[in-house]
């Protein structure tokens, strides 16, 4: 439901004239929310920007969102980021 809440707020911000880009861990929800720009990353819930205390990883994800803001050409743009989670064990 976090993803639905993100989508609804994202829509309101866009309609107020401010461009947005969101991360999603649940693309099945995001693609149905009708939003401007989203990036799917295969990380576990609670870690959309990556693992704790890995600033380099956070920076990569953040830069991808910046790029998405700069390059998307229309609404419902969904890209997939190439990163993979190293420690899925406890989340499976």
């Amino acid at each position, binding site marked *: 439901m976090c*993803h639905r809440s993100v989508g609804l707020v994202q829509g*309101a911000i866009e309609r107020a004239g401010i461009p947005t880009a969101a991360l*999603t861990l649940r693309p099945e929800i995001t693609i149905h929310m009708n939003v401007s720009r989203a990036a799917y990353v295969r990380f576990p819930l*609670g870690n959309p920007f990556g693992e704790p205390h890995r600033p380099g990883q956070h920076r990569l994800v953040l830069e991808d969102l910046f790029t998405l803001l700069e390059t998307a050409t229309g609404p419902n743009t969904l890209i997939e980021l190439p990163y993979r989670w190293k420690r899925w064990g406890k989340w499976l």
Partner: protein
Amino acid sequence: MALDHEILDEKYRSWLSRIASTHHGANHRVNDEAGFARLSAPLERTTVALVTTAGAHVRGQQPFTVDDVAGDPTFRPIPGDVETADLRFSHTHYDTSSAETDPNVVFPIDRLRESAAAGRIGDVSSMHIGMMGFNPDPTEIADVTAGRVASILAEAGAGAVLLAPG
């Protein structure tokens, strides 16, 4: 690997039916209109704000209600100069342990400050927003909270907003 939309549609229908069957008063909303605003200046001159539904708030603010089956549709304004160590997380529908040890995993305020210092963005917004995304009935989020959040960020001068779930 390209996303398989048939699989995503099936997962979406399954999620909707799970919410409807397990949460009293469950409802659903999506955006009638996506909206598509464009940057009014290069990012290097744009003030950027963050929104997270990961239950983020500042120490001393009222925590989100996490023991109500109806959720909590309110939001918390998070000042741009918040001490990262003062961020707290109230949410019982995802594992908050990563965010508690490093808030940047859901609310990358330190990374955003670095981006401003490096000149990649113009500035860090004076205001950001924390919400708690668990809301089986999203009506108030859609009809009240979302618009208020947009107004606050507009008043703060945000020229772009990045959002992340919990």
